């Protein structure tokens, strides 16, 4: 199991309760569970990294347990009971230095600290997603149906530090319904981007005095279910219930392009933290990896069950893993080369103006492609 789990670069949680690991470089998928103890109440709701080194995957199930999966050993090492199944499904899972943060549909946000008592926050009814601020670990955002975006500071759990205000009434003077389905913190700024069940994408800025969204745009006609921020700034990838994926520009809120090939609704979406890649999974039982640059489908893996969530590791999925075989080592050397190239490029990037950034990206891509070819040659 250990050698299997070490090569996996994408982790997917399924509706049947199976944790799946996918190795894109070797084009293999593995199931990490025992078939004898399968049941629907183990359905995976949320996935998250347990530590910054990405050796532990936290798996939140419907029945209220959070299991820890070690990617090095390839087995489930720990099981914690974090609430009952009657409180609803998990909507978010995060870790700080010492605590585990969970949130369920009924709005119960809990911080499970080791040794001390758990902190409970009521985030309102029908919470559909909770996310943690990647730069400030003690900040989380919640939102749901008729439950606007709220940002909480876990140090001071009494009141949220930011509560959004609903947008103004429409042109018929009717109230606009609220339905936050997913949100993300934009790095290096206070802004938060949300997508709604009424196909809007909104950007909130807690730093400004305005509590209403600073930018609003629409995509398609169907509820947006998932959202992810790519590595390059001012864009966001959203997916809806009909399997339409689009890259939206956050400066003006326009559609930059659509990612094609999906047959069913999107449930989980994640962009690679450094590379222009986005992984999507959903009800059509496929894991798809698209390139954000030319928007082509890079990988398509059939995983046999409906998929709920996806988790990408921060290493390059195309290059193997930290394995022991010789060819992998050679690949690793090339990784070093790439890093050198990147370092030099960054020097230029600092000097270049904003407008030239895209050109720089284009230059950046080329060495990467050559390494791919090299890798193939090595194989």
């Amino acid at each position, binding site marked *: 199991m250990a050698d299997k789990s070490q090569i996996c670069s994408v982790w997917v949680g399924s509706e049947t309760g199976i944790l799946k690991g996918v190795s894109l470089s070797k084009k293999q998928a593995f199931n990490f569970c025992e078939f004898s103890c399968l049941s629907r109440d183990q359905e995976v709701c949320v996935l998250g990294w347990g530590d910054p080194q990405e050796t532990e995957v936290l798996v939140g199930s419907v029945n209220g347990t959070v299991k820890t999966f070690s990617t090095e050993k390839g087995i489930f090492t720990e099981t914690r009971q974090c609430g009952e199944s009657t409180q609803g499904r998990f909507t978010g899972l995060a870790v700080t230095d010492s605590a585990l943060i969970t949130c369920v549909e009924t709005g119960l946000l809990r911080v499970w600290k080791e040794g001390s008592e758990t902190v409970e926050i009521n985030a309102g009814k029908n919470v559909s997603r909770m996310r943690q601020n990647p730069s400030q670990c003690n900040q989380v955002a919640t939102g749901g149906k008729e439950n606007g975006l709220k940002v909480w500071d876990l140090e001071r759990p009494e009141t949220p530090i930011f509560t959004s205000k609903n947008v103004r009434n429409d042109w018929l003077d009717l109230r606009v319904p609220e339905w936050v389905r997913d949100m993300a913190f934009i790095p290096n700024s206070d802004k938060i981007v949300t997508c709604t069940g009424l196909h809007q994408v909104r950007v909130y800025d807690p730093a400004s005095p305005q509590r209403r969204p600073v930018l609003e745009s629409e995509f398609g006609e169907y509820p947006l279910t998932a959202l992810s921020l790519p590595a390059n700034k001012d864009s966001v990838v959203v997916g809806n219930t009909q*399997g339409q994926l689009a890259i939206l520009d956050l400066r003006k809120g326009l559609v930059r392009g659509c990612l094609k090939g999906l047959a069913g609704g999107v449930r989980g979406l994640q962009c690679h933290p450094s590379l222009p890649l986005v992984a999507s999974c959903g009800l059509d039982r496929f894991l798809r990896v698209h390139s954000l640059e030319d928007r082509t489908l890079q990988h398509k893996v059939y995983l*046999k069950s409906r998929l709920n969530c996806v988790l990408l590791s921060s290493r390059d999925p195309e290059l193997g893993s930290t394995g022991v075989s010789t060819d992998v080592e050679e690949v690793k050397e090339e990784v070093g080369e790439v890093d050198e190239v990147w370092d030099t490029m960054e020097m230029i990037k600092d000097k270049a103006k904003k407008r030239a950034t895209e050109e720089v990206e284009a230059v950046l891509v080329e060495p990467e492609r050559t390494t791919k070819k090299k890798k193939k040659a090595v194989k």
Partner: protein
Amino acid sequence: MRTGFTALKKVKINSDANMDIVEAQEIKGTFTKKKNKKQKKQPTPPLTRSDDSMVKETETEHVDMLGESAFPPEFRVSEIKNKQRRHLMFMKLKLEKRKQRMAMKKKKKKERDALGDKAPPKNVPKTIENQRIYDETTVNPEDEEVAFDEGTDEFSAYFNRLTHPKVLITTSDRPRGRTVRFCRQLATVIPDAHVYYRKGLALKKIIPQCVARGFTYLMVINEDRKVPNGMVLCHLPDGPTAHFKVSSVRLRKEMKRRGKDPTEHSPEVILNNFTTRLGHSIGRLFAALFPHDPQFVGRQVATFHNQRDFIFFRFHRYIFKNEQRVGIQELGPRFTLKLRSLQKGTFDSKFGEYEWILKRHENDVCRRRFNL
């Protein structure tokens, strides 16, 4: 005034004359037609008889040459200027080719018969079905994961014999003509089916009432200009919902050689070619429409045959004539379905999550790829 009157008169006379001419032409026409019929067996056409004798001679020569098939190499039938001649020649050419082909076929068959068992295997014709691109979602019956997924899905209650199917059939609002009859006939095919008028009710309001009354299926037939063209099949109480396009509906009255009306026995169900994961879901959806145990006394079979993603429905009665032979009789109705979308949960076209949706211009680039 006077001039005008004369003019009128003239016109009248002219028209009379015209009439006469027309009649005469008609008579001529009929005459020639009769002639044609009589002389059909003769090789030379009668129409050219009144033409110049020169032309006639050349044409007869042509005909003779055709018989020997000794044209100059650059001769083409399409170069003949006279349309009727061209047509005639073309038909002859076609017949000639056909004769040759049949002779070849006969010869081949003779050779095959002579060789007996040693004959080389016959070539299999290329169709887009047997050239189908392998679908990675094709279900392997030994697959544990798929078995578990199917064992615990929404239909598992039916397949574990916990529920009995009860179907509500309704239409779009104010159905006309064929749609009503189609619904009635569907209700005779599916046991325990109840046809209700829609009365302008919203489907989302009907569904909770159906669940409360123990229905396991809601079937809605949609129509366009009095012709049924869509079907929504919603499994209750918690989905899934499938949306089909309905085409080539043939009601009982329009069928040739149909049998007597079906009896109330629950029929056997045949599901053909539902191989992929999506196909399995759709197959289970259809299977759960009918009661668990077919009554073999009724000798009735409902068939859902999938071919190139089109699902053909047929309803038959069979009889075993002797140990080898079996006779079937179609009872009707017959129709064709094509899956448009499969949605998780009960009918909710706006906020529902789609498990699969037909995207014709996005995903159907290849004609040899099928989804069911």
